[in-house]
């Protein structure tokens, strides 16, 4: 208990916790879960966007999308490395993903159906991710905070690219404008769900807030996102798919309608439109790559043995 108090005192003093520092088991466990979920999200997130690389409608967009997906993979790798500093290996963490034990962001269980979805994901999904992640740059755990700084920088670049796709589409011909509106219609509500359950129903938040892993509540972040995004949609000439949306002059906030939390629960429970496809794709890549990883290992061992013998 004394240790716990000492730890809390460090947190309260805005000290950064580093890998070799003593920390409560629950802190370690919470962070391992959160960082690895975040890593899994980056890796699974490659799939819906990767789905459009071969069909991108210009070479410039194709190159940008490919670079973006590559960045996501890079983020996944830093984040696994950050999680490993807490004592669980990447292999074990990935295994939790592949067996369905670990979660990843619910948003990646929706399909990308048209090119406009690539714009919408950059604009909305990355926009929501940044809202979530900026406070994490000040997270109490050093390696995670540092990873987040790097990730946020790249994400905001992606977000601008995504918005720029939406600008181009909304200035385009009728088919392009329809495509842009349709993408907004489909991605808006799932993006609001990305911030997690409403504060009244949220589980982990209290302790996470005390440990300065989390610095804003789900609803606070969601509101920030809505306030930032609604004017952008209006600038594009698009309509938000929420008849209850209205600006409250007094609070200065955009008030949004009721979120369908049943849908969210279903997606979290594995019943989203693409949950099975996503896990199947990652498992297939992993299984089909087994012989490659074995070969790399066998070669490394042979080489080591040869050096030792020489």
């Amino acid at each position: 208990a004394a240790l716990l108090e000492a730890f809390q005192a460090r947190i309260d003093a805005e000290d950064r916790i580093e890998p070799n520092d003593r920390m409560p088991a629950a802190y370690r466990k919470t962070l391992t879960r959160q960082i690895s979920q975040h890593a899994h999200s980056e890796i699974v997130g490659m799939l819906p966007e990767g789905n459009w690389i071969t069909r991108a409608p210009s070479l410039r967009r194709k190159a940008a999308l490919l670079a973006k997906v590559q960045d996501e993979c890079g983020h996944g790798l830093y984040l696994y490395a950050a999680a490993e500093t807490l004592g669980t290996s990447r292999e074990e963490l990935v295994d939790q993903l592949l067996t369905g034990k670990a979660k990843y962001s619910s948003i990646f269980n929706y399909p990308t159906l048209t090119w406009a979805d690539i714009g919408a994901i950059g604009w909305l999904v990355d926009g929501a991710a940044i809202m979530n992640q900026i406070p994490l740059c000040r997270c109490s755990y050093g390696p995670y905070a540092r990873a987040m700084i790097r990730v946020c920088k790249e994400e905001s670049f992606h977000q601008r690219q995504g918005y720029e796709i939406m600008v181009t589409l909304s200035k385009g011909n009728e088919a392009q404008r329809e495509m842009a509106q349709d993408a907004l219609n489909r991605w808006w509500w799932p993006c609001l769900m990305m911030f997690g359950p409403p504060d009244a129903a949220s589980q982990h938040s209290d302790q996470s807030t005390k440990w300065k892993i989390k610095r804003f509540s789900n609803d606070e972040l969601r509101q920030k996102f809505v306030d930032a995004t609604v004017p952008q949609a209006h600038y594009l000439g698009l309509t938000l798919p929420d008849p209850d949306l209205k600006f409250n002059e007094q609070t200065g906030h955009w008030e949004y309608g009721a979120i369908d939390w049943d849908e969210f629960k279903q997606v979290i429970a594995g019943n989203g439109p693409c949950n099975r496809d996503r896990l199947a794709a990652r498992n297939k890549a992993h299984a089909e790559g087994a012989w490659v990883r074995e070969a790399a290992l066998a070669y490394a061992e042979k080489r080591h043995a040869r050096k030792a013998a020489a």
Partner: protein
Amino acid sequence: MAKTIRVNETPLVLYTLRRADDALILGHRLSEWCGHAPMMEEDMALANMALDLIGQARSLYTYAGEAEGGGRTEDDFAYWRDERGYRNVLLVEQQNGDFARTILRQFLYAHFADLYWRAMMASKDATLAAIAAKSEKEMAYHVRHAGEWVIRLGDGTAESHARIAAALEDLWPYTGELFEMDASEKALVDAGIAVDLSALRERWRANVKAVLDEATLTTPADGWMQKGGRTGIHSEHLGHLLAELQHVQHTIPGAVW
């Protein structure tokens, strides 16, 4: 409204398009791996090489447009030529197959492209020489990366050896086309714009063989070699690739993206 184009293939335009098509189609094939590679490091590496190649293609298409002088853009060439209009070698359009096949294809092409672009740095065409300088640096990395994998797989397990040996046997007949030159290209060689590809072949073979030896793989003899890509006679694989690559542009033609 946009539709399939017929390019005015002057020697310089044709020459530039052939290199651009090699880069685009191979880049496309590599990009198909994205999210499905055997390890995350390879998701990164394959995407990175795809990006290099697509970047080379973009510069080359832009230059082909200038050389043709009709105001065509990089996207006109990529999205509005049909299968018979593409000029890439057959090697680069071959399907990915397993990781061994993808790596071996990359290895054979990268060793060629590395020598090729290095030689092209001396081209009298300033634009091609500049593209060459950038591309050569990129291809040196591809050579290293693919070579390391060829050695690991060749000298790894029995399974990996068998897979990469099979890929080597299957893909070797597509390497002759890399060194093909027709009259149109020879004229550019004489003008100091293009490189004499036949002069690179021995060096290429020696470089490739050195790695294959280390990988405990036997370098095949040069038997019958497939060709056709340079004149638009492709394998059946290219059409399916283009159906995917061009679908959005063809469905909503004439749009800005």
